[in-house]
């Protein structure tokens, strides 16, 4: 109880959106039947897109590397099943823009034939470096939604005090982490231990929201033999946000502009831990993930294990299609997920949920004037003044919004969720952040242009100067010559005289 109180005082603000997890929480993970075609984008992570290493027309095996990481921040991509690469071209992106992105099209041959895998019988005998090399090779990225390359995080977090495993899953509707904890706890715990080994963490805490008692029980019994602590956290959004879960479980805050490693903490998602286990123990790269298909407009909500690249429509069909017209399709959770307008988009490594929502569930209305009720101030888990920031942004005063802490905003959407005036606050903030980034880019561009212009005018000046010098030299030479000729003529005249 004391711990609970301590936890409760840990996070400021937060909201209690209606969970709606009961729609899909009782449905066990089912494997989606193999689709005809998969659409595997080259970029499914934060950083540089992967570089293709196979050719169109080539047959690939399940788990075979088809695009390699390039640059410091990147992750490789593997074939999710065996088949022929029929195209490498543009396909609609899993993004609200719906713009085309470079994507492999893989015609599945139905054999699901694995490539030779490098399994490991005693993973705990591996060196720390070896673990992160294997995690990098497996293309593992943060499966909580951020999709930051996991191996990079391991390398940046050597020797941290605390490893936190995020089983918060605070987004409404989503039950993919809940199910994976209930059904694959032993594998997750081994994955966690491997991560702990890779970064030499001194303590390990698994944080799970208390609305998932079965998952807590499953994880506790799987972790009994180890020293890791499984902690029930109060159910509150955004408990699963990195900054908030650290605050709640350790009482510490990440310094502004810093990373968790700055205070000796590393956070990984439970599904990432499972992926690490698969990669180290069996050598399997990350080619599938658990996706929750839910929302009031879905006939039979469920949790499915889908191959990366599976079109979203296949998952919806698997869930029995729609029970009524969906007003909005969302990729991810309802609080931070993205509106999609095309179900041909593929499931990617970061896709946690596919929601088909009815207008009752969205519950949005026209915005009315702000009455300064400061409900948003109370809801903000970061301690910002959303109403003031929005007022500055509306007046095009971005620097005023930055002074108020715009850059500390985690875009969790709590303010927009609670606003009785239905003002799209977080939309303002994301717009302003985008505008600031654009301004910064154009400033850099301007500076670069100025540098080039300066260099050009300097070059022109130098050329002018050099030419003038040369002219002067030539003139001097000519004059010297003329003088010499004159002198010679004079001398000659003298001699003749």
């Amino acid at each position: 109880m004391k711990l609970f109180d301590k936890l409760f005082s840990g996070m400021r603000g937060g909201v209690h959106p209606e969970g709606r997890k009961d729609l899909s929480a009782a449905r066990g993970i089912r494997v989606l039947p193999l689709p005809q075609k998969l659409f595997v984008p080259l970029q499914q992570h934060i950083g540089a897109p992967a570089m293709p290493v196979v050719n169109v027309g080539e047959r690939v095996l399940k788990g075979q590397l088809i695009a390699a990481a390039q640059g410091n921040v990147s992750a490789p991509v593997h074939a999710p099943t065996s088949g022929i690469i029929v195209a490498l071209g543009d396909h609609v992106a899993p993004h609200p823009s719906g713009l085309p992105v470079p994507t492999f099209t893989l015609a599945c041959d139905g054999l699901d034939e694995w490539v030779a895998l490098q399994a490991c019988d005693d993973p705990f005998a591996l060196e720390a470096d070896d673990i992160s090399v294997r995690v990098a090779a497996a293309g593992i990225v943060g499966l909580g939604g951020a999709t930051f390359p996991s191996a990079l995080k391991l390398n940046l977090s050597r020797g941290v005090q605390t490893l936190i495993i995020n089983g918060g899953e605070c987004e409404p509707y989503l039950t993919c982490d809940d199910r994976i904890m209930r059904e694959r706890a032993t594998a997750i715990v081994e994955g966690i231990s491997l991560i702990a080994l890779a970064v030499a963490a001194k303590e390990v805490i698994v944080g799970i929201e208390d609305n998932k008692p079965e998952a807590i029980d499953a994880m506790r019994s799987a972790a009994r033999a180890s020293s890791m602590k499984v902690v029930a956290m109060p159910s509150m959004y955004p408990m699963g946000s990195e900054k908030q879960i650290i605050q709640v479980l350790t009482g510490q805050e990440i310094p502004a502009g810093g990373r968790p490693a700055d205070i000796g903490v590393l956070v990984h998602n439970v599904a990432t831990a499972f992926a690490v286990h698969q990669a180290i123990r069996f050598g399997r790269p990350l080619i599938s993930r658990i996706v929750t298909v839910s929302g009031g407009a879905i006939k039979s909500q469920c949790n499915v294990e889908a191959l990366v690249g599976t079109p979203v429509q296949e998952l919806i069909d698997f869930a029995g299609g729609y029970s009524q017209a969906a007003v909005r399709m969302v990729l991810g959770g309802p609080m931070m997920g993205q509106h999609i307008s095309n179900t041909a988009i593929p499931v990617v490594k970061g896709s946690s949920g596919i929601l088909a929502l009815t207008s009752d569930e969205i519950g949005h209305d026209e915005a009315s004037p702000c009455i300064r009720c400061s409900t948003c101030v109370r809801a903000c888990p970061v301690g910002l003044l959303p109403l003031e920031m929005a007022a500055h942004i509306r007046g095009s005063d971005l620097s005023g919004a930055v002074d108020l802490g715009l850059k500390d905003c985690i875009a969790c959407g709590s303010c927009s969720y609670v606003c009785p005036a239905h003002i799209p606050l977080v939309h303002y903030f994301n717009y302003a952040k985008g505008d600031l980034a654009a301004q910064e880019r154009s400033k850099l561009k301007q500076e670069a242009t100025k540098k080039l212009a300066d260099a050009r005018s300097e070059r022109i000046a130098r050329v002018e100067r050099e030419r003038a010098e040369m002219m002067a030299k030539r003139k001097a030479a000519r004059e010297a010559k003329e003088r010499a000729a004159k002198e010679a003529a004079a001398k000659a005249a003298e001699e003749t005289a």
Partner: protein
Amino acid sequence: MNPIAHSPHAHAPSSIGKVMLTVMLALSPATLFGFWLYGWPAINLWAVAIIAAILGEAFVIRIQQRAVRPVIMDGSGILTAWLLALSLPPYAPWWIAVLGSLFAVIVGKQIFGGLGQNVFNPAMAARVMLLISFPLEMTTWGAPSPLSSPNGLNLLEGLRVTFLSQPIDGMSSASLLGHVKTEFTRGIGLDQALAGHYVPLDALAGLRTGSLGETAALFLLLGGLVLIARRIITWHAPVAMLLGVAVPALIFSLIDGNHYADPLVHLLSGGVMLAAFFIVTDPVTSPNTALGQFIFGLGCGLLTWVIRTWGGYPEGVAFAVLLMNAATPLIDQYVKPRIYGRDRKGAALHAKKGT
């Protein structure tokens, strides 16, 4: 194709209209009690105030060529008129209510740019305007004549009081604070002044002379607690306001009980209870943060006590609220929440590598 919607794709089931409606419901017990206590004139005055506010607001919105319906339907103008009516003497003539309501919604609110833009609480601004412009009408109090009592007025008599300014025989009375102030000018101390005028239990129940809806301390408290429970308001401003009145009252009454009324007299008289739960909690004109709201409430309470004790007017709630309204932007400038990962001054916290 529908435009791209931004997250969140879920929304709390709340709206401005619902907020205003909840506040009106919370005001109802005290209002109904006022109706019972003062009878038909009070009901008339309340109705006139609200109708005037609706028509006045509709008129100016029309002039601005904006949609009238959403503005009227958000309920904020009605609530403003309602609060103003509760602070008026129950037997005041109809034009007091009309003038007050029009001033509140037009000058107090719409001229500033409408809902959410006004600097001063419209109801209190209107009350102060009325008090300064029509001191006689605003300080003519009637003794309670409950609807159920034999000397209660019937509808017709009530209409005569409100619309024809018919004087009520033998019913003129003084509010407690006004009475005390008058007695002080005659050199009479509190021990005699309060005798027969102040019965704490009656004051608690609201059975006293005063404004239409300000007397029922218990019902106002009840309404305030409902609003706190429904998370429409927080405890900070109300508690601070009550403390701001009670603490100096306690100290000074302990020093000289014959000149300074005790805290209970202050809390249970005038508009303190109404203001604490329904006026200083007005979101538009109060600070954003919990601490800011506490400071704001405390200032309102303190100024109320100061004006009552040393000022020219017997009651100071409306003046105190307006003064603190003016200070709200200043409070918001200096009182801000600490941002995650930063200290109070906004500098990043120091990184401390695992111990």
